[in-house]
């Protein structure tokens, strides 16, 4: 194998700085996209299990639309197609004057996509809490909003903590798709380092280790939290 090994390359400037900034972008994308996914997904999950048919319909349409189109295609739709459908001024703003157009587009598209998955998790969590709990709440005079707020959601979230963590880790991995629209996140940076230094193995190994480490850490954290918050008498769904 024709290869000059140089494991120290990544600790040298400027490559170390590059890797750190790229990792920063990856983490930023993940956290911001997660905020979108979690908030929107929770709202949709509530809609999906609500007693009003119109709300259920809205949520179902959203989920089906965003789940059946690949995330990469969705990113392209937001980045290339959406600005062209706007009026000229807005179009220009979205394409260049908005701060960090590629980054923002990546965050929004990953967030909206994952919201559909979070919605399904929230729905299954609410269903797991049970129809009888909901009925009991209504029976003692709570409005539907109160039932959700005091009965369904607190318990649902504790049940679905492992799958939700899984969804966050999926966002973390999906952040790599931002490289297709030019965001220099972690995976893109390894390619760039390979281009400049020809030390592909070292760069790729570093990225692989980082992704594995973050996943491992988040999973370990989740298990700790789950141990403390799990509903007594229920077993938590294994993170799958």
């Amino acid at each position, binding site marked *: 194998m024709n290869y000059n090994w140089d494991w120290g390359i990544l600790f040298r400037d400027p490559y170390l700085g590059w890797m750190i900034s790229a990792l920063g972008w990856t983490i930023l994308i993940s956290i911001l996209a997660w905020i979108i996914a979690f908030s929107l997904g929770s709202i949709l999950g509530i809609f999906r299990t609500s007693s009003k048919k119109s709300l259920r319909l809205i949520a179902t349409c959203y989920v089906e639309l965003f*789940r059946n189109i690949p995330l990469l295609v969705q990113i392209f739709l937001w980045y290339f197609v959406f600005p062209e459908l706007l009026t000229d001024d807005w179009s220009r703003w979205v394409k260049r004057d908005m701060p960090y157009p590629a980054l923002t587009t990546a965050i929004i598209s990953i967030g909206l996509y994952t919201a559909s998955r979070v919605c399904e998790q929230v729905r299954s969590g609410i269903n797991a809490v049970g129809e009888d709990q909901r009925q009991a709440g209504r029976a003692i005079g709570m409005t539907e909003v109160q039932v959700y707020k005091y009965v369904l959601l607190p318990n649902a979230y504790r049940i679905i903590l492992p799958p939700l963590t899984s969804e966050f880790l999926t966002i973390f991995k999906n952040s790599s798709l931002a490289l297709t629209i030019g965001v220099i996140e972690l995976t893109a940076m390894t390619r760039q380092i390979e281009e400049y230094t020809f030390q592909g193995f070292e760069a790729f190994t570093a990225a692989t280790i980082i992704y594995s480490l973050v*996943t491992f850490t988040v999973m370990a954290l989740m298990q700790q939290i789950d141990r403390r918050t799990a509903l007594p008498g229920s077993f938590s769904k294994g993170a799958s």
Partner: protein
Amino acid sequence: MFELDFSVIPANSSLLWEGIKMTFLLTGLAIVGGIILGTFLALLRIAKIPVLSQFSAAYVNFFRSLPLILVIFWLFFLVPLIVGRPVGAFSSVLVAFILFEAAYYSEIIRAGINSVRLGQLAAARAMGLTYIQSMRYVILPQAFRAMTPILLTQAIILFQDTSLVYVVGLRDFLVSAEIVANRDQRLVEMFLFVALVYFVFCFAASLGVKYLQKRINNEL
């Protein structure tokens, strides 16, 4: 703003059709390979020998912590250097998909095997079947029947994941559409078309899975 010209789609139908065929070919082969390797990994995981089950667990956890794009890059750029000879775009991408998806399939199959009642294994052994025979004729068929809807859902996910070959330029449906889009400057039309085609396939497939699930539930 609205000067959409969809005629570019029929005009390039042969290129797009080749792309769709490539997508389906990749999906089909990856599903088969993924299920075979996934079953093997699941069996290793429940084996009584610690080395085997630890290896399987490590494999699954490792591949599930990586982005698919990174795995594709590893196979496409670095493996030929290791192996010492070129591997070809399609083969390296296919291997990447099989290795990656097998990790997810193995978890599904393991859950399926565990869901088959313990008594079945004991009964099969009592009747004189070896472990392998019990697996082959008693446990796995039942596990697969129960897990078919989830396996199919994972297959739909795989179908969507094949769009990631974009990063290495393999001419699947998305890449073929992008070639047309860039060459004839018709981005909006082509990307909307791609989204529509994926949506129709995946939605129809997911309805099929729901129907299948109802039938299985009615049988049990």
